[in-house]
């Protein structure tokens, strides 16, 4: 071991490290440590000059190992591994000491920071001399992709990948794709009709030869890793045979079962027991809802079966389980709406003419339950005055602290639509700040201002029907502080719209867990890096797009979906991926055949050869956690790059200054 020649490089990182750690002292000290041939400090090790310095030393000084003491290995390990490789040294003959994130940035105490840096360097040196050259493992990438969620994000990503020539499985929980965008009427700030821009894309998804659309389906289980996932999907029984159904809709027309549509129409309209959420639904096949179906509830009816011209109704259909093999996965599960009932003082559910934003979207939609008429809960009376309350559930410590990012803009959109449909109606917007920071958003705000909407700045205290002053009888009174004039105001209106914020899906934690990734405090999926890798996750081969990552409007959603798609396409086109060879290996000569490791492996990557009475790790399935390595009573398993010898030596190294010499006998 003593013939190893280690080069140690201590980075200043500008002043990020040098301000707290005496980098020169560390380098000078390191030069005198065992195994170390050369030690230097440098302003920016990650710069091309820093890297060249390492490469030059490897070649000229015959270094056999390299230690860089700088930032986190998650930041620059690959950078320096590359430098080693360029100079002809195996990339695993390298070790990084993280003296920035784990040291200089966490203390102001220069003396102990310098001491800690020395320990970390010494630990790295002692470890690196035990490193072994390893080869990266090529993993073939299955060219199929799974996309979860068929909102605008999932639709966009599916089309991008399918158009590049690769197969996509699109799994959507509801009977139709479309997501929230299918519910909205016009889209801010351009006022395009949502259906006009969305439905053509939905149809493309439905007809694309490279897309298998699995609607009304749920994920059950995910196994495997990047390049090779196995996914189990439950296709819920529709009770309609898709192979026979033409989507004519005769069954829907004749169905006598009627129920409130709580999902697509958010309780504002009705649907049949056999139904499509909306006329342009993709796929076109209806679904029988057993809860409201008279046959399923009372055993008699079957009107749909009777009228179906192609005999597609099948009351005996069962849930189907599918096993899919995919190389990559995109999660595009979107968001939930904040429940307006959570804030009782705004009266939703108690005062009839308080509406949520999604109810209003359905109401102004020409295809919605009121055929686009803006009317009170009685279904006929148009309001003479409307109050729109911004930020309901958002920017509020009691509910969600974050800004939902779309409410200001859709509230302005609502004001505009009311002026357009009911020119004599007064509109009051109660806001905290107007957040109109997107492209052409501010211009849209000005347009609404000029249309004569009243803007009142201040948070609304309550909505009540208790009249106190003349003119308030029979009205809803909005009580708010007008912070611009510093006065309490009571504004009587006929209709109140609560601009409810968005929140993460109620089941986002469970979904995240299926994929071994995390959610932030608000339940949104965590991206690998908030700025540089917004669609990557900590799980290789699993990407996120759209509102499941955080609140966002359609343009950003589509941009993210395209980005996720291009990440997937780039992986597929590489064909194989080089994976870190951090895997376990069993030495058959040492293995006693006890099989303790067999059940420990979470990936079932260990098989037992009954004939030879030894266990073996299937390298392609091993993920390198090391659980079996630590458990083997015969020390027959080695965890590459995390061997017991490497870790033990690192322990000795980092404790160089406090070690007690212990009598040999006790060792």
């Amino acid at each position: 071991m003593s013939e190893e020649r280690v080069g140690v490089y201590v980075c200043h990182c500008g002043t990020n490290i040098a301000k707290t750690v005496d980098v020169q002292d560390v380098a000078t000290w390191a030069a005198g440590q065992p195994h170390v041939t050369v030690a230097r400090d440098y302003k920016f090790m990650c710069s091309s000059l820093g890297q060249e310095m390492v490469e030059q030393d490897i070649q000229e000084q015959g270094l056999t190992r390299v230690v860089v003491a700088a930032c986190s290995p998650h930041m620059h390990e690959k950078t320096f591994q590359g430098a080693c490789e360029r100079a002809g040294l195996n990339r695993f003959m390298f070790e990084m000491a993280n003296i920035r994130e784990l040291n200089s940035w966490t203390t102001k105490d220069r003396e102990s920071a310098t001491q800690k840096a020395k320990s970390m360097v010494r630990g790295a040196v002692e470890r690196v001399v035990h490193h072994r050259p390893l080869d990266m493992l090529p993993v073939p990438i299955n060219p199929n992709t799974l996309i979860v969620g068929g909102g605008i994000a999932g639709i966009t990503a599916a089309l991008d990948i399918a158009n590049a020539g690769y197969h996509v499985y699109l799994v959507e929980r509801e009977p139709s794709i479309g997501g929230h965008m299918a519910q909205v009427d016009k889209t801010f700030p351009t006022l395009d009709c949502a259906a006009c821009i969305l439905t053509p894309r939905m149809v493309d998804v439905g007809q694309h030869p490279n897309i298998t659309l699995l609607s009304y389906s749920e994920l059950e289980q995910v196994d495997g890793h990047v390049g090779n996932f196995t996914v189990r999907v439950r296709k819920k029984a529709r009770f309609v045979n898709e192979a026979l159904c033409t989507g004519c809709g005769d069954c829907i027309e004749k169905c006598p079962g009627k129920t409130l549509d709580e999902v697509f129409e958010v309780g504002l309209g009705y649907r049949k027991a056999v139904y499509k959420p909306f006329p342009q639904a993709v796929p076109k096949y209806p679904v029988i809802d057993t809860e409201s179906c008279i046959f399923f509830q009372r055993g008699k009816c079957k009107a749909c079966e009777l009228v179906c011209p192609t005999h597609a109704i099948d009351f005996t259909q069962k849930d189907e389980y599918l096993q899919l093999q995919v190389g990559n996965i995109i999660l595009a599960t979107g968001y939930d709406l904040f429940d307006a009932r959570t804030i009782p003082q705004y009266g939703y559910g108690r005062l009839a003419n308080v509406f949520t934003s999604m109810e209003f979207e359905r109401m102004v939609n020409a295809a919605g339950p009121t055929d686009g008429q803006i009317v009170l809960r009685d279904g006929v009376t148009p309001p003479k005055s409307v109050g729109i309350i911004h930020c309901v559930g958002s920017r509020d410590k009691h509910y969600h602290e974050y800004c939902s990012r779309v409410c200001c803009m859709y509230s302005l959109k609502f004001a505009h639509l009311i002026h357009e449909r009911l020119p004599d109606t007064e509109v009051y917007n109660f806001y905290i700040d107007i957040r109109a920071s997107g492209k052409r958003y501010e211009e849209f705000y000005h347009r609404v201002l000029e249309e004569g909407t009243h803007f009142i700045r201040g948070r609304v205290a309550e909505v009540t029907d208790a009249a106190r002053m003349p003119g308030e009888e029979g009205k809803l009174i909005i009580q708010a502080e007008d912070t611009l004039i510093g006065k309490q105001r009571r504004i009587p209106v006929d209709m109140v719209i609560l601009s409810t914020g968005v929140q993460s899906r109620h089941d986002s934690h469970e979904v995240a867990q299926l994929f071994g990734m995390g959610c932030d405090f608000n339940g949104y999926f965590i991206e690998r890096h908030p700025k540089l890798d917004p669609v990557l996750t900590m799980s290789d081969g699993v990407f996120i797009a759209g509102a499941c990552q955080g609140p966002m409007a359609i343009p950003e959603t589509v941009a993210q979906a395209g980005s996720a798609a291009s990440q997937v396409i780039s992986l597929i086109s590489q064909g194989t991926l080089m994976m870190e060879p951090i895997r376990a290996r069993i030495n058959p000569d040492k293995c006693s055949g006890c099989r303790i490791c067999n059940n420990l492996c979470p990936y079932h990557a260990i098989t037992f050869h009954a004939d030879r009475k030894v266990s073996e790790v299937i390298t392609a399935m091993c993920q390198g956690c090391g659980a079996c390595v630590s458990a083997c009573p015969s020390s027959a398993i080695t965890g590459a790059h995390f061997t017991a010898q490497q870790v033990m030596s690192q322990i000795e190294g980092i404790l160089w200054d406090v070690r007690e010499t212990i009598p040999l006998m006790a060792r």
Partner: protein
Amino acid sequence: MTSEPYTPVIVGFLCNWCSYRAADLAGTARLTYAPTMRPIRVMCTARVEPQFVIKALREGADGVLIAGCHPGECHYVEGNIKALRRYTLLKQMLRQFGIEEERVQIVWAAASESKVLADAVDQMTLTLQALGPLRWRQTVLNGHGAEQAVRESADVRRAALAAQEVEGER
């Protein structure tokens, strides 16, 4: 090592996916905490052999902190549960050695929970300051005599095996 104010030395085994990232984030967010923890990165807490912990204590550490993902969130499904099981047994062994249990701790810190990790280090530093230095040699070796220690390191092995058998049953 007399009446000088004493700064403990902690060896921290941080799992690559949650706690190492929590530690990274603590740095990025410039959280200040005691510079007492000397970190060792492992892929998962399941890789932490009881022998690593004993080794660290024997080589002069006053305490060992094992930090991993929350139960249910381990990158490798449930490596942290395996670690927890080993840790429980390890504690029993430490008691036999005459080592205070608080010297070895396990903490769950998700990648976003930089504060949890930093607080754990601070907290443990205070605990160890109250306990004083470990001094393996006096506590374990001189306390029982070298012969005894050899026997006990055989105990270490046996207890470790026992831990593995419990795991093996699953």
